[in-house]
């Protein structure tokens, strides 16, 4: 019996898997595009402008300005999680897509890597679009203060990889579609509310901030907040490092779990 190497064994096959997902998505590009196109407008209108009228921040900024980095972090996170939680599970379990791919020279590690890269791609497309909308609305809403904000796109690779890896790790242990209720209710929803997107953390009790440190989204929002405001701080590098470590950990976990699921 051959020992299974701990390090992922990845080839160009990962890119083939990415191409498969791209082709499948482009087939339905109209429906895909519609969802992405309307989302940021709806949320800016509803939360930023409608709800924002009732919110007064200590910093004096408009709520919609405060919200911008949060939206830039949240919606790409959703794009990655939907793709690599539901989407991957459907491909794994309902469609047998993984099974058909690993019958070719492509390995399980390639499949997982390709899936994560695709989830990351979707989150980057989503993030770029939100940033574009924010720029376009800038004359009226002043959501972006600094050109540094553009850096949010390359930086976004990291949370894209992280949230894709977390999601596919869960997909690899899920036994039914209904199990995703646990994932979305226990992991993604709390992150949505307590990831620092909707309210400032600074004035909250200390225990709240400690908990916040463990929430991946909080680090993403912190980095984007700095970039969008043009206020660069060393703590942003810390957050970047936190995300990098978590990404590697969850990527390795995803590969291990999916090998166990598919190779037996």
């Amino acid at each position, binding site marked *: *019996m*051959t020992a*299974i190497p701990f390090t992922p064994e990845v*080839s*160009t*096959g990962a890119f*083939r898997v990415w*191409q*498969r997902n791209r*082709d*499948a998505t482009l*087939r339905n590009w109209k429906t895909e595009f519609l969802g992405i196109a309307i989302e940021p407008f709806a949320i800016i209108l509803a939360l930023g402008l409608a709800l924002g009228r009732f919110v007064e921040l200590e910093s004096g900024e408009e709520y919609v300005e405060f919200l911008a980095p949060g939206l830039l972090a949240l919606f790409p996170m959703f794009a990655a999680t939907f793709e690599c939680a539901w989407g991957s599970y459907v491909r794994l379990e309902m*469609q*047998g*897509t993984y*099974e*058909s*791919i*690993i*019958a*070719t*020279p*492509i*390995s399980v590690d390639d499949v997982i890597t390709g899936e994560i890269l695709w989830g990351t791609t979707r989150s980057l497309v989503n993030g770029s679009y939100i940033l574009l909308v924010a720029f376009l609305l800038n004359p009226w809403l002043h959501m972006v203060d600094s050109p540094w904000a553009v850096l949010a796109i390359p930086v976004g690779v990291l949370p894209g990889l992280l949230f894709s890896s977390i999601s596919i790790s869960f997909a690899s242990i899920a036994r039914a579609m209904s199990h995703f209720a646990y994932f979305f209710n226990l992991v993604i929803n709390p992150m949505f509310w307590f990831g620092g997107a909707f309210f400032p953390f600074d004035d909250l009790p200390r225990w709240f901030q400690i908990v916040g440190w463990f929430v991946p989204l909080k680090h993403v929002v912190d980095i984007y907040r700095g970039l969008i405001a043009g206020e660069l701080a060393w703590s942003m590098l810390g957050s970047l490092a936190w995300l990098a470590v978590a990404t590697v950990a969850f990527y390795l976990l995803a590969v291990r779990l999916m090998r166990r699921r*598919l*190779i*037996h």
Partner: protein
Amino acid sequence: MTSVLIEARGLVKHYGDFVAVDGVSFDIREGECFGVLGPNGAGKTTTIRMITATSPVTQGQLSVAGLDVGTEPRQVKAVLGVVPQEDNLDPDLLVRQNLEVYARYFGLGRERVRQRIDEALALFQLDDRARSNVDDLSGGMKRRLTIARALVNDPRVLILDEPTTGLDPQARHLVWQQLRLLKSRGVTMLLTTHYMEEATHLCDRLVIMHRGRILIEGRPHDLIAEVAGPQVLELRLPAAERDALLAEFPQGDGVSMEQVEDLTYVFGGGRASLLAAERVSDPHRAHLRPGNMEDVFLLLTGRGLLD
């Protein structure tokens, strides 16, 4: 001299305490169709999964085209074409895209396989469905597309795991025709099936597996002659008449009988079977027919013998 494409020696697969495959050895030679028969749970699919490098071998040697499956899984999979038991075509892609994207998994670009895909679509009578959704295809079309997909990398061995299960007779015969055509073109095949007719017609050699072991190996017609005999007499008679009739058969001499509920089988009865069939009070209660693969299969894996 024909070369051996798949070589298994003492192949074992454990799942915890459960032994799914218990030391099987076989050779699959270039150009032949090799069948694996066996009841559900016999270890057929597990054996296939080991060959396709999606299930680690617990013990024993397994090589494909001279490559060790454990150490060179990618190279092994590159020379195989796999038709799984359940269709796993890509419903997110159109019919033709299914073949193109699959070819890309083998590192074959669209241009390189254009002609091969055209041919495959024509051969499997799918050329007018090239732009269809996979979900709109009938069961038979999906099967044919799955086989076409498995050929897209021009494999050295085509592995078919129950290729016609769940198809209606028309669709099944069409698939058989196409598999015969592939065979005549020299495609090497490994086939598992529950249809004895399929095995008899398509396979040059076959093994019957049971509880993880190979019970018998040989050419279908040799196995039938050897195990079931040229003729089988089926009787459905009242006990008294049956016993009187059976007493007429010569003892030993290769004659065997089997009682299943109210049905009696007599194997290897030869001339005595012929005479018995004529003497039965009601001719509808006796049926003399050629031995077949199903007899071989049931005799070896199913029921105990009477004698």
